[in-house]
């Protein structure tokens, strides 16, 4: 048994078989195959090995022509592993003996080798070889996968997902019913993994440090999201203890859910707030209702696009939107955010999407939509068609300039005209909003406010872009702080602009799900919060202890402060005074 310590980012306990995703996110099927299929798996392995040999030989010839025999020979050497009959036989043996899938057998065998290399890491050769074996594994996995690479949703049983870090597109395709917990080697409390775990309401521990070579898929692991432990190969006593703890937890959370539904989001002095839920998948609409959310404040739509062999059709979009509207009901808002991803995530863009050196400042999100009108219009048509099923609202992400917003609105009008001409029903007065998540948008919020029905401050990106710090990069993660005075000043500008124009300002970043920020946000004038459904009961509790004048004083005080740590300390103290358990 091994206990590893990480950062607890989402509470709860999960016990289950591991699903290991390698550092580059190649999915490895952990499920074994039926015994009668083992021969097929061996054939697949052999075919992949032959293909890899050919590939290596071709590379060698190409390189030799280009750079001479010497360089070419390096590739011959790399290709040498594919000719290693003993190595291949070892993998084959795993398939025959355990009925592993070819992918899993490759990974498992190489992991063993890599572990031996890691143990000898004081030898320079071992360090060099590690890379060669990882290349070998990747090469084979890529060839084995081909077009039918098993996507994560196809895992057949509930799993604990272990990875170096999860990328947004990987997380978007997770089948939420089958993922019981997440644990990652890197990442901090604001990483995408952390957000995802929060959204799925599953336990998660991040920043554990290297552990992937110590675990193979299907091994039983425990994720303790309360204390930040990842337990590999647990012994029986530990398993029993955790099973009991999990049982108690389930009973408790069931009670919690029931009580929070009936608590209204009203401040102590009687001001009514609107609490909405952020969702990533249609199935999460139910979580919103369970937690007493009054609608969906952010419906991310990226899951429709990523890792699909083709772009989603208008019907795919339409069905996903209608499902959520029907679940939420006709009178509660559902804010659908248009596509918010980079171009590299698209199936049909593979090969032509230029490698961007700085993707977060590149062609992504609404910028990509404005360059790819068929893609954008397909989504807008579906959104408009779905609008007749409830209180749907459209929101454009990553708007940086007034011009972009105008373009989006004019395209929306075109789509409305098309629908009208075809006699397809839609609500003509669907509210249109923009996210404020780029500092330039915050700075011209007064202009933007005249052209939309609502704002939604996306604090995660706003913080990242304001402080120029990638929250997933541990080296600069300390700069990333929602309490930074620069961020607060921008938010203050946005809420003022919203009030002046008489439009609603919602906050949908993680900041809105943190009870300590509630007094500040209310003080800035925010009356609508959109957060991970799980957080809603906590926010409701804090809100019920606050008064608007007090919050306004808190906000004014914060805006006078000079550093993020001052603000954080002040807010924590304040929250602790009014509701001790919420400040932690």
């Amino acid at each position: 048994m091994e206990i590893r310590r990480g950062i607890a980012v989402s509470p709860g306990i999960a016990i289950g078989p591991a699903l290991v995703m390698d550092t580059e996110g190649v999915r490895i099927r952990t499920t074994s195959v039926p015994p009668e299929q083992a021969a097929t798996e061996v054939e697949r392995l052999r075919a992949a090995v032959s293909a890899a040999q050919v590939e290596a030989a071709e590379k060698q010839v190409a390189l030799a022509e280009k750079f001479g025999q010497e360089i070419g020979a390096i590739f011959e050497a790399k290709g040498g592993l594919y000719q290693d009959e003993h190595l291949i036989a070892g993998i084959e043996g795993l398939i025959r003996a355990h009925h592993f899938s070819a992918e899993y057998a490759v990974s498992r065998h190489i992991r063993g080798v890599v572990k031996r290399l890691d143990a000898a890491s004081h030898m320079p050769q071992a360090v060099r070889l590690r890379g060669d074996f990882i290349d070998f594994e990747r090469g084979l996995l890529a060839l084995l996968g081909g077009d039918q690479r098993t996507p994560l949703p196809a895992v057949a049983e509930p799993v604990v997902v272990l990875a170096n870090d999860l990328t947004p597109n990987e997380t978007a395709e997770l089948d939420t019913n089958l993922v019981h917990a997440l644990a990652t080697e890197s990442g901090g409390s604001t990483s995408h993994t952390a957000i995802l775990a929060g959204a799925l309401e599953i336990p998660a521990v991040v920043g554990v440090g290297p552990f992937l070579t110590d675990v193979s898929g299907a091994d039983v692991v425990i994720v303790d999201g309360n204390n930040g432990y990842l337990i590999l190969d647990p012994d029986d006593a530990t398993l029993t203890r955790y099973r009991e703890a999990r049982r108690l937890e389930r009973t408790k959370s069931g009670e919690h859910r029931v009580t929070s539904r009936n608590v209204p989001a009203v401040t102590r002095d009687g001001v009514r707030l609107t609490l909405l839920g952020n969702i990533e998948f249609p199935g999460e609409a139910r979580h919103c209702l369970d937690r007493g959310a009054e609608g969906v404040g952010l419906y991310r739509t990226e899951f429709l696009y990523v890792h699909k062999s083709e772009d989603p059709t208008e019907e795919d979009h339409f069905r996903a939107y209608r499902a959520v509207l029907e679940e939420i009901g006709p009178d509660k808002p559902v804010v659908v955010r248009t596509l918010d991803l980079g171009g590299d995530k698209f199936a049909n863009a593979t090969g032509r999407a230029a490698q961007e050196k700085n993707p977060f400042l590149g062609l992504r999100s609404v910028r990509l939509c404005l360059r790819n009108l068929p893609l954008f219009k397909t989504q807008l048509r579906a959104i408009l068609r779905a609008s007749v099923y409830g209180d749907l609202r459209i929101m454009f992400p990553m708007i940086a300039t007034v011009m972009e917003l105008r373009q989006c609105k004019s395209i929306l009008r075109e789509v409305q005209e098309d629908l009208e001409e075809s006699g397809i029903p839609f609500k003509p007065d669907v509210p249109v909003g923009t996210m404020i998540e780029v500092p330039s948008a915050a700075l011209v919020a007064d202009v933007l406010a005249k052209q939309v029905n609502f704002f939604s401050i996306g604090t995660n990106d706003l913080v990242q872009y304001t402080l120029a710090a990638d929250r997933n990069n541990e080296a600069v993660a300390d700069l990333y702080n929602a309490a930074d005075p620069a961020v607060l000043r921008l938010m203050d500008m946005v809420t003022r602009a919203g009030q002046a124009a008489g439009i609603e300002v919602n906050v949908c970043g993680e900041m809105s799900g943190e009870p300590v920020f509630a007094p500040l946000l209310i003080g800035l004038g925010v009356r609508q919060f959109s957060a991970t459904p799980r957080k809603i009961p906590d926010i409701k509790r804090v809100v019920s202890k606050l008064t608007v004048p007090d919050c306004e004083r808190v906000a004014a005080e914060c805006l006078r402060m000079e550093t993020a740590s001052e603000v954080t300390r002040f807010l924590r103290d304040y929250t602790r005074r009014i509701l001790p358990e919420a400040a932690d």
Partner: protein
Amino acid sequence: MGATAVGGTSIRRTVIVANPPDGLHMRPATAFAKLARGFRCAVTVRNGEKAADGRSPTDLLMLFAPPGTELVVELDGEDADIALDPLVAILTAGEYDPA
């Protein structure tokens, strides 16, 4: 892997060679294994207590033999005599000219 001679007489040859000047890395290991597979005799290479199947580059690489290490090459099989010189040549040269 056991040293079993198939047919013919079993010939056993053991030599001690200094490891290639630049270590037993991917290239000599691959070349050595490739050549070893061409013979019928069993080929074992030892570095201290660690033993490697001479036909497996992976095994050879896992010996982590730095330059100058003494390696023991054991051949067992009817063609051990013929195999000995070219195999040892790869190790001592550190490079192998496939032509």
